[in-house]
């Protein structure tokens, strides 16, 4: 089924000029799925949840968890407020996909979020967008205002008794706020400290009420599933991880950018066919498949690897956000890894000691190696630090900081060995 990717027509960001405008979106079948779901008595909230569950939309924010399954964790409505927090924080380095939806097809996301709201009896959707995206926040706010004006948001939508509000909330420059519980803390006007789980957001989320957190791209997939059915959706791309994906490709590549293709694309097709190969005809030294937290793969590990959760797990990495960074053969992996560690040191929220101190030690040790003052035993020290960080903190930031270090040092060890002094310690 993937043979035909060359004739693939984008679904999330179709080639329709000015689709971000309400009139154009409506003319192209926009909000029809919302109308269908709200007015056709066949579509009960449970049925919508089941369609999405059956379609197996896997979260596009990094974890790859089934969206429908997540929705089904919400408790029965008790008459009180319930929330969706739509995660547009998008601060995983290498990731720049959600802004394309804000810019080119915001109403697809809004429609998807309202349908999700109907399925879970939600009273309000908070769209959390990173603060740096000022221009895209304004675009999104405009789209939300337009949807209110048309009666797709607000009280008694389309004459039914379903009401929902949508608010756009701007972050202010904190990577950690992309973590779901930290995002909720931030929405509640606090420092973005991740919460201890359980209780999970479905039990106790925003303002202590049931909450579901979904990525922007995940929700944008919902109207497509409602329109064409789950069987159609499951036939797109990889079997266990279906659907269209926005691949964000950056680094030493001839034509970087965002490309929409089915999941399960061959990495080599994306690099060579879609992006016109590596700059200067060089070889690929490393690929980071889904944002900085995913373990880097060596260029010689890439044969036959496909961009879906299972294939990448077998290869020794993860799908993440599908923000792919390609590094050419001249890249100094010590420099690269130092910059990754600097990022995590800067972004650690400081709640848990293994992360707050661990990220700092990683960076310090890498500076030492970078400056030619490292010793062979520092490489083992780095790996030891990773072991002391992984799985020992409230959220996954410590793991996300440790994995690139662990896998860069082990998979590109020759780069590191070249930079360290080969000190021999005699036993006294």
């Amino acid at each position, binding site marked *: 089924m993937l043979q035909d990717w060359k004739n693939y027509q984008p679904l999330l960001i179709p080639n329709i000029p000015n689709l971000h405008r309400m009139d154009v979106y409506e003319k192209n079948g926009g909000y029809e799925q919302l109308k269908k779901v709200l007015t056709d008595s066949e579509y009960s909230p449970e049925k919508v949840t089941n369609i999405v569950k059956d379609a197996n939309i896997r979260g596009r924010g990094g974890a790859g968890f089934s969206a429908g399954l997540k929705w089904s964790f919400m408790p029965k409505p008790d008459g009180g407020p319930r929330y969706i927090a739509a995660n547009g924080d998008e601060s995983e380095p290498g990731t720049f996909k959600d802004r394309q939806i804000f810019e080119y097809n915001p109403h697809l996301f809004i429609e998807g979020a309202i349908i999700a709201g109907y399925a879970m009896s939600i009273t309000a959707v908070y769209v959390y967008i990173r603060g*740096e995206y000022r221009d895209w926040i304004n675009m999104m706010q405009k789209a939300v205002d337009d949807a209110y004006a048309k009666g797709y948001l607000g009280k008694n939508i389309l004459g039914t008794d379903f009401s929902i509000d949508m608010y756009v909330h701007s972050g202010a420059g904190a990577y950690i706020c992309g973590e779901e519980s930290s995002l909720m803390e931030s929405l509640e006007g606090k420092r973005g400290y991740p919460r201890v789980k359980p209780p999970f957001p479905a039990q106790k989320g925003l303002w202590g009420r049931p909450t579901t957190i979904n990525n922007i791209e995940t929700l944008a997939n919902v109207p497509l599933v409602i329109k064409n059915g789950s069987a159609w959706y499951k036939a797109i791309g990889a079997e266990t991880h279906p659907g269209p994906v926005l691949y964000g490709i950056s680094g030493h590549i001839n034509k970087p950018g965002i490309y929409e293709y089915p999941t399960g694309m061959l990495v080599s097709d994306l690099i060579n066919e879609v992006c016109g190969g590596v700059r200067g005809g060089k070889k690929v030294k490393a690929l980071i498949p889904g944002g900085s937290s995913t373990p880097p793969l060596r260029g010689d590990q890439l044969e036959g690897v496909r961009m879906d959760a299972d294939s990448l797990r077998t290869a020794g990495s993860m799908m993440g956000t599908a923000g792919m960074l390609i590094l050419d053969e001249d890249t100094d992996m010590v420099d690269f890894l130092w910059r990754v560690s600097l990022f995590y040191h800067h972004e650690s929220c400081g709640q848990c000691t293994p992360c707050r101190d661990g990220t700092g030690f990683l960076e310090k040790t890498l500076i030492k190696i970078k400056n030619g003052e490292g010793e062979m035993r520092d490489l083992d020290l780095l790996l030891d630090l990773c072991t002391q960080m992984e799985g020992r903190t409230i959220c996954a930031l410590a793991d996300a900081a440790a994995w690139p270090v662990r896998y860069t040092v082990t998979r590109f060890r020759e780069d590191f060995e070249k930079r360290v002094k080969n000190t021999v310690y005699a036993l006294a």
Partner: protein
Amino acid sequence: MSTTYTFSKEDLAEIEKIKAKYPDKKSPVMPVLWLAQDKFGHVNDDVQKLVAETLDLPPAHVFGVATFYTQYYKKEMGKFVIDVCTSFSCQACGAYDILHYIEDQLGIKAGETTADGKFSIQSVECLGACGYAPMLQITNGVYCNHLTKEKVDVILDKLKKDEMPAFERIPFPQHTTAKS
């Protein structure tokens, strides 16, 4: 000498609108800090106190929030704050060369402000424009992508004349190559 900061009637009306979006009184802190920063150019201690008074919150809470998020300027900055992304996608595409070039052009280092108070430079973490590297952002606003030294010269010249570069809409590659 200390400046007194106050919200105008229009600002207070805007703050009421913000408060209506959230179910409790703590939650509007971030949007109100943004409003204050857009108005005063920074959120120093005095502005934070004003925000706390306006929202009837302890100043310590507002201080805690303002200092957690990097985009709030806790001290006065240059009129134009040039945030150069040096995270690794940009690093791989020569972001440090661009950063050092801007430092040379303005005669200051990252983290400093020019004596005339016009420019500040910061080296910042990923801004989400990895495919358009290297890039910079001006005062939490416009993104300038695909930087070269020549392009930086044009941007700095514009800013010296108080002109903001325009928003760059980057075409979606599959739209431009699609067969019609």
